[in-house]
């Protein structure tokens, strides 16, 4: 059966998808564990971890295989006719961008499983949904057929809904429904745009590359681009369609928030890049007139992105709920991704892709600390309450992990976020300097809210009274478990490694971005 795979590097990548779905299936079929019986859940956990690790290994293998002399060239993994009459292919392929994002997905999956280790409620189903979501995400990143991509995209949305609706916390139904509604509205817009493109192209192929080369008329691209960009952008937290993100992140169980912020939002951004910009590059051309300095869709979305950066940061500054801070920070950081995308230059787009990776790691880490390590012990997310708990003393691991994550998040050099934001800012400078300046304000506010949250949550100045100390000694927090340590260390190290030696990812991203910008496809 291997003969259907192209005998080239990275062909194993496709198995990330299959493996995840298979894992999901197996987990769904496992006998229901009885609550309280430890062994029952353990099997599910280890199985999920095994699948996630295997996926990560495959992703890593694919990434490594993609390096080398012909690195980052796009390689086709599978290309089977699916609905020949419509030209739909089951076409999986990988270029540098895909590899990086697949790697991110693998990492997020492993970390997600680790941070879900203590899920007791319907464990099997949880991990089944989790892996199904992961499988869908892998699929999106590897699809080079627009319909296949869309299918995976939709596949990924469904488990997300259940993850939030069943295992979520605050206002989970509301959040889940909000997320689902937003997603479907976005999907609908994307579908309309893509169908229109298919019809307009008349090429009888839904391959991304083929469509990109179909020579779609500029007037068509002019309206299809914003439609598709907004459609995907909704999931990427594009302002002002971002409000699902904070509520969704807050309501979701930790692992789901990690995936939501870490990977799912990247689906949107990836779609913006691969589909919206890839298929309708001319849609960004100037309109021929300009209104208060806005003269093209590119300007429009740049403005939205920049507003999102500053706005998200400011709202994060005003939050009282720890997790909301992180939730809004995602909006702000995704603004950088979108800003990078619409710079339409090599550096900016590369930065955007790197920022996708970086934010995936960092947001995952932040949610893990806030939602899992801290919340599970303190049972509150209110900064005002956390302030009285002296967490830097009682949970030093969490405190310092958050410091590292916060540093990475606020874009301090040495961490991946800095390199990514640096590139985005450079790209924005090249495009329009004032974008950079405003985004710079966003960074400052970013520093402020991260630091504020950190100080309030961990390093409050409230001196403990004797009574407090006694109370704390009587009721110590649960010790940090190994999955928490492992997950934290994994993510932190990845961020640090990429921050110190970003070349490792940039080598893969840059050529792919170059080809994408040159001619849509290859």
């Amino acid at each position, binding site marked *: 059966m291997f003969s259907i795979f192209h005998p080239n590097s990275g062909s194993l990548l496709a198995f990330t998808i299959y493996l995840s779905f298979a894992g999901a299936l197996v987990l769904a079929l496992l006998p229901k564990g009885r609550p309280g019986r430890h062994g029952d859940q353990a099997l599910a956990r280890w199985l999920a971890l095994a699948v996630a690790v295997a996926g990560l290994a495959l992703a890593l293998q694919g990434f490594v295989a993609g390096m080398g002399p012909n690195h980052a060239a796009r390689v086709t993994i599978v290309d089977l006719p699916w609905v020949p009459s419509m030209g739909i292919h089951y076409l999986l392929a990988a270029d540098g961008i895909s590899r990086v994002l697949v790697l991110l997905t693998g990492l997020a999956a492993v970390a997600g499983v680790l941070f879900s280790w203590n899920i007791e409620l319907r464990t099997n189903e949880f991990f089944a949904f989790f892996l199904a979501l992961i499988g869908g995400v892998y699929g999106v990143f590897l699809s080079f057929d627009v319909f296949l991509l869309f299918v995976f995209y939709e596949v990924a949305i469904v488990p997300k809904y259940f993850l939030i609706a069943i295992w979520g916390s605050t206002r989970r139904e509301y959040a889940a429904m*909000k997320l689902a509604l*937003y997603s479907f509205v976005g999907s609908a817009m994307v579908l309309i745009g893509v169908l229109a493109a298919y019809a307009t192209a008349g090429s009888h192929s839904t391959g991304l590359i083929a469509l990109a080369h179909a020579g779609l008329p500029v007037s068509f691209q002019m309206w299809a681009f914003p439609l598709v960009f907004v459609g995907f952008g909704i999931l990427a937290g594009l302002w002002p369609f971002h*409000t699902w993100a904070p509520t969704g992140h807050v309501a979701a169980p930790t692992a789901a928030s990690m995936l939501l912020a870490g990977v799912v939002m990247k689906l949107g951004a990836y779609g913006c890049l691969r589909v919206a910009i890839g298929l309708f590059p001319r849609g960004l051309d100037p309109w021929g007139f300009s209104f208060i300095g806005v003269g093209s869709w590119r300007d429009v979305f740049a403005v939205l992105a920049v507003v999102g950066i500053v706005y998200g940061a*400011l709202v*994060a500054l005003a*939050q009282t709920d720890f997790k909301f801070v992180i939730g809004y920070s995602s909006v702000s950081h995704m603004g950088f991704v979108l800003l990078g995308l619409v710079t339409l230059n090599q550096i900016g787009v590369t930065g955007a892709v790197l920022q996708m990776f970086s934010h995936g790691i960092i947001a995952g880490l932040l949610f893990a600390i806030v939602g899992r390590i801290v919340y599970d012990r303190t049972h509150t997310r209110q900064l005002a309450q956390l302030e009285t708990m002296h967490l830097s003393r009682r949970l030093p691991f969490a405190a310092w992990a958050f410091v590292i994550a916060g540093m990475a998040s606020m874009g301090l050099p040495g961490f991946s976020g800095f390199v990514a934001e640096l590139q985005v800012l450079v790209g924005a400078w090249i495009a329009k300097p004032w974008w950079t300046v405003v985004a710079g304000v966003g960074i400052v*506010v970013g520093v402020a809210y991260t630091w504020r949250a950190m100080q309030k949550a961990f390093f409050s100045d409230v001196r403990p009274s004797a009574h407090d100390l006694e109370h704390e000694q009587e009721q110590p927090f649960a010790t940090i478990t190994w999955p928490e340590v492992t997950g934290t260390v994994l993510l932190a190290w990845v961020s640090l490694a990429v921050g110190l030696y970003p070349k490792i990812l940039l080598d893969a991203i840059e050529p792919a971005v170059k080809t994408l910008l040159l001619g849509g496809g290859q």
Partner: protein
Amino acid sequence: MQETISFAPHLAASPITGILWLIPTVPIVASGVIALLKQPKRKTAATLAIASLSFSLLLSLVAFAHVVAGWAHGVAVRETVNFTWIQVGTASVDLGWVLDPLAAVMLVMVAFVGLLIFIYSTGYMEHDENFTRFFCFMSLFAGAMLGVVIANSLLLLFIFWELVGLTSYLLIGFWYQKPAAAAAAKKAFLTTKVGDVFFLLGMVWLFAQTGTLLFYNNGAGSLEFGALKGLLAQPGAWGLTAAGAIGLLIFAGAAGKSGQFPLHVWLPDAMEGPTPVSALIHAATMVAAGVYLIARVYPLMQAGALAGGTTAALTVVTWVGAFTAVFAALIAVAQNDIKRILAYSTVSQLGYMMAGLGMGGVAVGMFHLITHGFFKALLFLGAGSVIHGCHEEQDIRRMGGLRADMPLTFFTYAIGMLALCGFPLLFSGFWSKDGILEAAKHWTVAKTPFYLLVFGALLTAFYMTRQVGYVFFGYWRGKKPAHESPAVITVPLAILAFFAMALGLIGTPAWPWFRAFLDGRAVGFDWHGFAEPGLLGLMATSTVVVFLGLGLGWRLYGGQAPTPEEPDVLEKAAPVAWGWLRDRLYVDELYGVTVIAFYWWWARVADWLDRRVWGGVVAGVAWAFRGWAQLNQFLDNNVVDGSFDKGCDELASGGGLLAAVQTGRVQTYLRILALSVVALAAILIWSSLP
């Protein structure tokens, strides 16, 4: 006055010049060693200090001899040793030392007076617990002062100058537990520092203009022809040449150290220090350093003067000096503290020196400096002896009749007092003051300084008589009876007294050895010196004035001085004027409401700016961001997110409307369906009809 001074252009540095640096270094090193000693090692400390200074004196004498020998051979010695301190860019900051007559004379004076005071101190400070510390500071001072003397670089001079200021500060505040002493020390340092920053400015200006701070460097020094020519060509400020402006800035430094008006306020307060300190630093040497500085940079001050004329800088020096001389003398009249009277007298005499420099040149000013160094040291030490004998009493109204109890002290003190008053012929002060008066008489710019100085001489004689009258005559008004001081105190007094008289011999008009020596001219004994026009008349005038002062003083205070409770004789006569003088003409108070108030006002302004304005701006920005953040959150909850929720609600209510149509009756639905089909079909058919 000489336009050009014919010093030998270049002399290979002689061995003594080569080791001249040892003169300041040895006492400084000794000071360092003493600093490391433990408090009880009193004897070692004193021995070290005295030995080191003796060594310096010895070297100074050798150097002096060398210069004199050279002079005797018709060579005006000016030997320098220069070296680079810092290499900055391609230029360099050079330091060096110089041996010339000016330095040699000053070296001997400082070292000699210093040594005597050291010896005196071993007795005077015998019971002080910080005895070793005292000698440490004193030794440091001596070294620094000697450093000032030999410096051949304005920068090196400045360095030692500041060190001298530091030791002055340390010694004034020697009894640091006394708040008054601590405050006086601070005041002294700061007031002199005010002068010093101008000095610094002058120095950097000079450096920038001439590229060097060396005084003499084989024609390339800043006081030598090339540099001065450049400075004269350069316009300065307020119509001065650069040379003049720089000179004035440097003079500000000198005025600070030498207590010239308006920077004199620290010097009387400095009497809070131990008496030997007052004698050494605040009478004989340090305060004279300002005069010495002006003498040292005299070519600069004088640059541009036409033959026999003066320069703007020198005019300023003159006026300041003359004014200070009278001003301080007036205040001295109404003081009751024995040391304070001497302090104001010092200020006054420094004014004489400055005026002498301004009007008569280096030698005139310097001669008074040297003689004053001896007799004022003598007076202070005598005062110390009195204080010692009267059990630390300093108020002259609580003394009296001491000439019987302390005969030796009285005798020497009287010599000093007469020297200070300028008692004719026998005493050095007469000759040196006459030199100044003579110069003032011949000054072409104005005659006022001459009258001022004459009036000052009158006042000097008067207040000294008043003091002596109070202290040594009349009857004992103190509590415990006084006693004579030990030999260790009286012997230095005797030696100083000898010099207070004898030194006059080298500066008489008949044998102006001192002036000739400084100017590098040959000298011979010649009675015709007195025959200069107006000289004898001047001497007569001065004699009359002195006797007038002495007589007046004696008339008022001789024998029957009032008790402490009684008002002074003059106070009864003119209480308002007396009050003004007693309160030092309110200069301190004036500073209190101007400079010091300004200082604190600015401090408060700076602090207020910092806390309220800049801090307020920062807080405001932070507040604005917070507020903006809150606003954004409000928008997010109510507009962006709200629109979503609203949309959902609308949708739901729309669903409710639709639900109203759903009656639940199947047949109704069916009916509607059928009707719709009918309608649709009808339309379709109708439209397809041809």
